[in-house]
């Protein structure tokens, strides 16, 4: 991020604008990437509502609410980070980025804890390959659960990596050389990942109460 404007662009505003467009195009493809998972979820929910009624109550909505709050706050601090990057407030930028990272890491830690808990209770997505006429059941529900939250968690992990890289770079860069575009790009990504969770939360954790 400390480099000057990259070659094909004339000035930073031009570049920022291009980065924003590029990043939104990337997020557009992420929408469809996660979209597949949501269509998969919906299709299963329509055909087998009973699975959601039966197994969603096994998910801990309290924990998930805490995680939601953590992500929301991290989005807030991320927005601040972008602001600080553009106003070249270096210390605040590093602080905001670190807070975002801590919240994101907390989310992942809780998620890991939750996963461990499910595995302990045999709530795993693996289907029994040998069994004949297994039929949909616990494994089906936890299949959706793990696949959806797993892809989300991987994205959070990727976001954390990018944030770490930004924070280190900001730390090393003199304030006058700070550039907003990279922070903005990572910020957009982070907010997007947050949005995915905003849908996953009711879809999975509250579904047990929502289902008939």
């Amino acid at each position, binding site marked *: 991020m400390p480099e000057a404007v990259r070659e*094909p662009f004339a000035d930073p505003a031009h570049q920022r604008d291009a980065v924003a467009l590029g990043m939104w195009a990337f997020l557009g493809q992420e929408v469809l990437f996660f979209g597949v998972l949501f269509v998969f979820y919906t299709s299963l929910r329509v055909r087998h509502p009973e699975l959601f009624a039966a197994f969603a109550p096994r998910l801990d909505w309290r924990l998930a609410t805490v995680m939601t709050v953590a992500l929301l706050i991290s989005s807030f601090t991320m927005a601040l980070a972008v602001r600080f990057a553009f106003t070249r407030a270096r210390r605040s930028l590093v602080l905001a980025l670190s807070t975002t990272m801590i919240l994101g890491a907390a989310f992942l830690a809780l998620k890991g804890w939750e996963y461990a808990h499910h595995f302990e209770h045999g709530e795993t997505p693996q289907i029994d390959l040998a069994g004949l006429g297994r*039929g949909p059941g616990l494994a089906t529900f936890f299949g959706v659960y793990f696949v959806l939250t797993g892809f989300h968690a991987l994205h959070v992990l990727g976001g954390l990596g990018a944030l770490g890289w930004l924070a280190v770079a900001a730390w090393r860069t003199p304030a006058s050389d700070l550039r907003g575009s990279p922070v903005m790009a990572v910020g957009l990504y982070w907010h997007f990942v947050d949005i995915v969770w905003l849908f996953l939360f009711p879809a999975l954790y509250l579904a047990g109460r929502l289902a008939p």
Partner: protein
Amino acid sequence: MKSWLTTTDHKRIALLYLGTMTLFFTLGGLVATVIRVELATAASDLVTADTYNRLFTLHGVIMVFFFLIPSIPTFLGNYLLPLMLGAPDLAFPRLNLASWYVFVAGGLLTLTAMVAGGLDTGWTFYTPYSTTFSDSHVILAVLGVFLAGLSSVFTGINFIVTTHRLRAPGLAWLRLPLFVWSLYATSLILVLATPVLAMTLLLVAIERGLHVGIFDPEAGGSPLLFQHFFWFYSHPAVYIMILPGMGVISELVPCFSRNRPFGYGFVAASSLAIAVFGFLVWGHHMFVAGQSYFASVVFSFLSFAVAVPSGVKVFSWLGTMHRGSIWLTTPMIYALGFIALFTIGGGTGLALAMLAVDVHLHDTYFVVAHFHTIMVGGMLMAYLGGLHFWWPKISGRLYSERWGRIAAYTLFIGFLLTFLPQFVLGTQGLPRRTASYPPEFQFLQGLSSAGATILAVGYVLPGVYLLASLVRGRPAGDNPWGATGLEWCTSSPPPPHNFVRPPVVTDDPYDYPRAPQPTITGVGDA
């Protein structure tokens, strides 16, 4: 060597792609040759049925994901887009290089799968065969294709941003070359359809590797859901394959008719319309798969809707030739071949889009013939046409026009002989993907194999005389064809940052009546 592997110059990256894809095409073509030899006789005598299944899968996967989808965009598009826009490079040059590396990595993974024992699912990866029953290397191959998709997404984003943000002063949207319009439409599909395939393939890998029941009917999943996802990508993907080709033809026909495009606005808009409507027709691959009756009717209807803009293109090309000054050079012969074969291929697509007809023809050789007519007869002709058209710009040399024509006619004849019989085979009811077949189909299959031999010769020829031109060809000059467009205003080959002085555009595109006359002599019929 190192300067090539770390280059961020779009022109060099384009050539890296050209080299890589030529290798893939040769591999895919050699496999096709083995397929055709096997099919020359009714029994499966050359290779076993298992090997045959691996061969057509390899052929389909390589040709689609590692050749035809990236072909024109990553080679001609990469090379020409900044030139046509008057820009020094793509918006994100390093991303461009990264996408080549990702592409190569994907190719290597897929090839590893092939070497390790192959893949036998067909290029469609239908579940539950791919997830549960196949004992071939599905996961490796799927990850390879996933990477190829990622590379497509990067390229698409790069093109979109470049087209929006890096046009030369004065280059308004309605002054863009039609090739740029088609690349833009292609990029939209690349960015918005590819992720669906990417996720779907990852789900297949997860289901197979971790035994999570996603598409498995036994566990409440649905194989049809997989098909919905697959075709949601793969139908738009066929427009990824054809749109850039149409863009090339829209450059060639005006140039060699010395006419303005007939209905510039219609052609540009039809590219976008194809891209948008192309997203709405995927279910026409599932008419007999058990999708709902209602869905089938809707998808059939929309498939016809998407054909209207394709018709506009064909009509406009003809209109451009009308009252023109037609100069029958090698690129133009390819363009004419494209128009003829695209019409046949597209028309047979319409036959397949008719519900009752598809019930009979689905998954027969008719389908094989339909898509080869568009993809080989259409798109490959466009690719070769574009290659010949811009070769003087890229290499700075002229190739042998005489050999160019011989190759073009050879290809055309070889093509017809290979794939016309397959239409008949399909109509007679021969299912595809079979190593052996009842003897009554022997004659036509033999004809098809004979044609494939001619086709193969036709493909080897350009490789020879184009390479020879690098050594012995005459210098081409900046604008040998007397074409319009910013790429012809700079030297051949262009300097590192494309233009010595950034160009400013003041005119509408394709002002052929006033374009410079060609500098090539002794070519064509002038």
